């Protein structure tokens, strides 16, 4: 077995026993990146030199007995989480030379735990997209079929984990951006409860929806990364001072007494691919065999979630992205000698088409005369969507649904029609609007051999029950063990 194939938990065990060194492990991952990056295109920046330095430091700490479950473990980071001294582009021309002067809080925590950062992964520009095709830097291919998209916006992270180009990754999820690519690439992804993980140093897209979370090879690794990044941070006043449990401890309990809610609306959704339907249906019966009780629940307003989201998220984005003005950092059009011309030209040349589309949509929704009709209406519908979930959770502990309506689609298939692309997030968006934790785990394959994921959602701060359900499912199935041949 090659070292790059290890999970975080396995590697950590070998490091602890001194059977491998972090330098060997990190070197193996860097060699793997060298050999497959040309095909997959998962990374914007590979930080080989600093990674080997961090690995050497981790080895010396381990030799002194200072070891955490992440010491010496090579991870990748989505390129919108600030890493001190390491270029952070958001896959945008407007930031392609930006080198953060500080670490995001999650990076500080990973570094303190001794993790090794091997590089920064590709994404849709400013996390706006569902296929990573909106990257202003490069194209990422799905390791299971290079002619397909890896999902998005954390497509680079999911592809890198699936192709063994890192042991785990941090992504971000505003409307499904961790769960949907995890589903398309056959890996595990979690969007934690809003406020569970600090957003300090995460480049903002839609501040009331964004959340950082792990992308991993299996469920235990997800728990290990959740342990490392969760918790209150004075740097983010929307992070919540709730106790952080040991998330790996949930991977021990059985499923008896757990009630799983199946939303009637989701499973009759228009455009749901029959491969996805079959895989999720099989997932439900596996959970029943494990002792879970499945009941029908109703979420009558979720059919409006995408419409509400495409008002709220672009509105917040249009405000957040006002900071890119060619003055403080990033690209500036130096040809322009008048200030207003410089602003306009810098932003028009710096932002890609999808980002400009959303800025205009958001600015329109917030502008005089339209605010009540669009923004206010959407925030009221958001309240109704949250109430749906509150009611549904009276009858169940976990809600189960598909992650995406179809398996990964072909590169270029949906780029001409933004609305069709937006509808790929139909099952994932509600969890962001309602702030709940959501998780994607592998639950099958399509006839064409593409991975399919199922989604588990829980009450606020109930990541534990998702991990418990996912772990039991994973123990009973072997979907997560199949790897793409690349």
């Amino acid at each position, binding site marked *: 077995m090659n070292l790059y194939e290890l999970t975080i938990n396995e590697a950590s065990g070998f490091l602890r026993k001194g059977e491998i060194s972090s330098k060997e492990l990190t070197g193996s991952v860097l060699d793997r990146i060298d050999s497959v990056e040309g095909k997959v295109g998962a990374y914007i920046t590979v930080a080989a030199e600093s990674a080997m330095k961090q690995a050497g430091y981790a080895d010396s700490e381990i030799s002194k007995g200072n070891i955490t479950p992440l010491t010496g473990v090579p991870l990748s980071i989505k390129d919108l989480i600030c890493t001190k001294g390491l270029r952070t582009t958001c896959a945008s021309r407007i930031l392609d030379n930006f080198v953060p002067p500080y670490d995001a809080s999650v990076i500080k925590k990973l570094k303190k735990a001794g993790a090794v950062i091997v590089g920064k992964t590709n994404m849709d520009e400013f996390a706006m997209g569902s296929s990573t095709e909106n990257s202003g830097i490069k194209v990422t291919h799905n390791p299971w079929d290079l002619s397909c998209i890896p999902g998005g916006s954390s497509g680079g992270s999911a592809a890198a984990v699936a192709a063994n180009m890192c042991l785990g990754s941090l992504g971000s999820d505003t409307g499904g951006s961790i769960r949907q690519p995890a589903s398309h690439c056959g890996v595990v992804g979690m969007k934690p409860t809003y406020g569970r993980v600090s957003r300090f140093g995460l480049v903002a897209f839609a501040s009331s929806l964004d959340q950082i979370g792990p992308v991993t090879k299996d469920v235990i690794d997800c728990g290990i990364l959740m342990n490392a990044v969760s918790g209150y941070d004075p740097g983010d006043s929307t992070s919540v001072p709730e106790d952080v449990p040991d998330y790996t401890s949930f991977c021990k309990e059985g499923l008896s007494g757990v009630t799983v809610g199946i939303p009637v609306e989701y499973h009759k959704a228009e455009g749901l691919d029959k491969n996805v339907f079959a895989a999720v249906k099989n997932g439900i019966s596996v959970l029943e065999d494990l002792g879970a009780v499945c009941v029908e629940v109703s979420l009558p307003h979720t059919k409006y979630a995408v419409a509400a989201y495409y008002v709220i998220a672009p509105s917040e984005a249009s405000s957040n992205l006002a900071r890119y003005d060619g003055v403080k950092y990033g690209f500036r059009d130096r040809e322009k000698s008048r200030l207003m011309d410089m602003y306009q030209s810098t932003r028009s040349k710096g932002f890609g088409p999808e980002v*400009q589309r959303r800025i*205009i949509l958001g600015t329109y929704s917030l502008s005089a005369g339209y605010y009540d009709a669009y923004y206010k209406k959407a925030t009221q519908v958001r309240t*109704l969507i949250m109430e749906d979930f509150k009611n549904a959770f009276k009858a169940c502990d976990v809600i189960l649904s598909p992650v995406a309506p179809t398996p990964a689609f072909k590169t270029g298939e949906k780029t001409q029609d933004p609305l069709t692309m937006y509808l790929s997030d139909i099952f994932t968006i509600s969890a962001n609007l309602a702030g709940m934790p959501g998780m994607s785990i592998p639950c099958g394959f399509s006839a064409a051999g593409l991975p399919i994921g199922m989604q588990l959602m829980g009450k606020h701060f109930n990541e534990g029950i998702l991990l418990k359900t996912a772990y039991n499912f994973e123990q009973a199935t072997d979907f997560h063990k199949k790897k793409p041949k690349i």
Partner: protein
Amino acid sequence: MKITKDEVIHVANLARLDLDEDSIDLLAGQIGKILEYVDTLNRVDTEGVPSTSYAIFLNNAFREDSVKESLDRDKALANAPEKEDGNFVVPKVINS
């Protein structure tokens, strides 16, 4: 059309974007289609429903107003496209 070309130009100006003629046409069509979809929200009765801007209930996050160390000037300026004497440089804004 749901959104006119003039409205796209107006909004682009508010957002400090400079669009060429082709982009204006394309965006008017695409955004019009998205807004038509968004109009499905009008089927929902929201009379008396409060707005939600954050999904987690949080009280105001007060803290002591005390002086703390912050990013030093050189680091804050390190990514500036143009700087001089510890300041950001912008194109001239006042006619002399």
